[in-house]
């Protein structure tokens, strides 16, 4: 039972905190690899000064490794920047695919820690009006509760479908995932977000599915 009942803004702060901690961890890893590669370069030069020949191919490979890690860190910083700006983004028309892909990228490392892979269903992009940050926050709460019960080697697929004036977002879990329990936890913890999005959360235990039903046209 989750006792905490925060407002949408409080949940948003927690979401920001969790994601920035995760991304800073990823950046640290990239920096640690750059540090080791630079250190190895220095070691090889020190050995060369003592007479051991330098292998140009080895140096090229190390330079390429450093460059790759710099690109990796740059990509994480870009994601972090996009995430930071999204917190203040107003209601906008956006595609579910864009929201799914960004949420999957945000949560990828934490998913990997729990042996979970997040995929996005093909060919089912739906346009909707919402504050993307709040939708991403609600999706994150769903994923977080899945991670808590994951025993590893699981996949969750994010998909969407049109339903008249609504869009139905589906989180398809592996069979035997306790989706009803996860659905209850999401409804409790994510209530302020559900209200803010005018959404509804339902589960289908037979299909191991959690559905988030949201209006396509959002009216405040």
């Amino acid at each position, binding site marked *: 039972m989750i006792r905490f009942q925060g407002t949408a803004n409080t949940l948003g702060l927690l979401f920001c905190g969790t994601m920035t*901690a995760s991304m*800073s*961890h*990823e950046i*640290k*890893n990239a*920096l*640690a*690899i*750059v*540090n*080791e*590669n630079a*250190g*190895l370069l220095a*070691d090889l030069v020190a*050995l060369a000064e003592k007479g051991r020949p330098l292998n140009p191919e080895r140096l090229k490979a190390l330079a390429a*490794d450093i460059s790759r*890690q710099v690109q990796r860190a740059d990509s994480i910083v870009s994601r972090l920047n996009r995430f930071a700006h999204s917190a203040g983004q107003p209601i906008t028309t956006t595609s579910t695919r864009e929201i799914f892909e960004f949420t999957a990228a945000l949560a990828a490392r934490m998913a*990997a*820690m*729990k*042996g979970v892979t997040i995929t996005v269903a093909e060919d089912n992009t739906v346009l909707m009006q919402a504050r993307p940050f709040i939708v991403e926050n609600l999706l994150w709460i769903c994923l977080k509760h899945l991670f808590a019960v994951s025993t*590893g080697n699981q996949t969750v697929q994010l998909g969407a479908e049109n339903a008249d004036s609504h869009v139905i977002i589906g989180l398809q879990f592996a069979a035997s995932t306790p989706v009803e329990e996860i659905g209850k936890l999401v409804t409790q913890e994510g209530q302020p977000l559900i209200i803010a999005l005018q959404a509804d959360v339902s589960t289908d235990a037979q299909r191991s599915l959690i559905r988030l039903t949201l209006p396509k046209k959002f009216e405040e």
Partner: protein
Amino acid sequence: MRVLLVDDEEELVSTLAERLAMRGITASWVTGYRAALDIVEHEPFDIALLDVRLPEMNGLELKRLLEVKRPGMKFIFLTGHGSEEDFNACSAESGRDYYLIKPVQIEVLMAKLNEIFQQ
């Protein structure tokens, strides 16, 4: 001194192992807890350097399992997070001096390895 490096960042542990080898330390590396548990079945190690945030099993849990297989093995934790929660948990297991935050300078790591090895 035989050292086992465990971190899911392969490029990090492979490079670190090479640098330790240049300094006379025999270092093996693995990128997950299963491989770590497997390698200690077959090879003895004096010290394991464990990433705190490993996939599927954290470094603290892994340390306890490795200790059962290899009593007397010593441990240093490595983290990118540096959170107070991690620091307290790891310090309780291995001592506050053996909790290192990435990126680590090789001289600092060498000093810690020698220090813990001689204890």
